[in-house]
């Protein structure tokens, strides 16, 4: 019995819900691109890309941003193109 399990309530016998309770205050991540139905990520759209290269200029990982693999690959491609043109930094001190 978990710490957050109150016993035989409504959700007794529903393991999925019990698991969910532990993360009660964590928002479900979702892919922003899927949500907004963006199919193409432009390497020229610096404002968008800069959101994916915070301070250290590393590409924002999927596990944190919640972007789906399909879109993460597109973001990656766009950032790499933008880096080649000095639109987005490789590193920043």
């Amino acid at each position, binding site marked *: 019995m978990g710490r957050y399990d109150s016993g035989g309530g409504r959700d007794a016998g529903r393991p999925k819900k019990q698991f969910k309770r532990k993360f009660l205050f964590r928002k479900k991540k979702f892919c*922003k*691109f899927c949500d*907004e139905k963006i*199919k*193409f990520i*432009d390497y*020229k*759209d*610096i*404002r*968008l890309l800069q*959101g*994916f290269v915070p301070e250290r200029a590393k590409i*924002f990982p999927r596990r*944190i*941003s*919640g*972007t789906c693999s399909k879109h993460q690959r597109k973001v990656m491609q766009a950032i790499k*193109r933008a*880096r*080649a*043109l*000095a*639109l*987005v*930094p*490789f*590193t920043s001190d």
Partner: protein
Amino acid sequence: MLQYETIFVTDPNLSDGEIDELVQLIDQLTVAAGGKVIKVERWGKRRLAYTIDHREEGIYVLMTLECPPQHVKEVDRRYRMNDRILRHLTVRVEDESQLGPSPMMKPRPAEREDIPAEQGLMP
């Protein structure tokens, strides 16, 4: 005939006339190869994300071309021959939005009052 998008970054000290010459050169080459120029966009002087040959700034020019695939090789060769071109990139047009004005030409969100700057696609 395919659509390509080509960007080059030049020395910030080039004059407008010299930039025009470069644009014209690409234009002439493209027409000679049986293609045409769809769009030319001058972004002007921009700060580089990192220094290139001790230069902090560069002049960006974007061109959209419709040309045979072999022509890209020739354009790239010309770019490499010109040492005043710091960086260049030619890619296929993947999306129709690339044929219109690029995001670079849109007003900055900070200047628009209806959308606060933080409300981008920031994760």
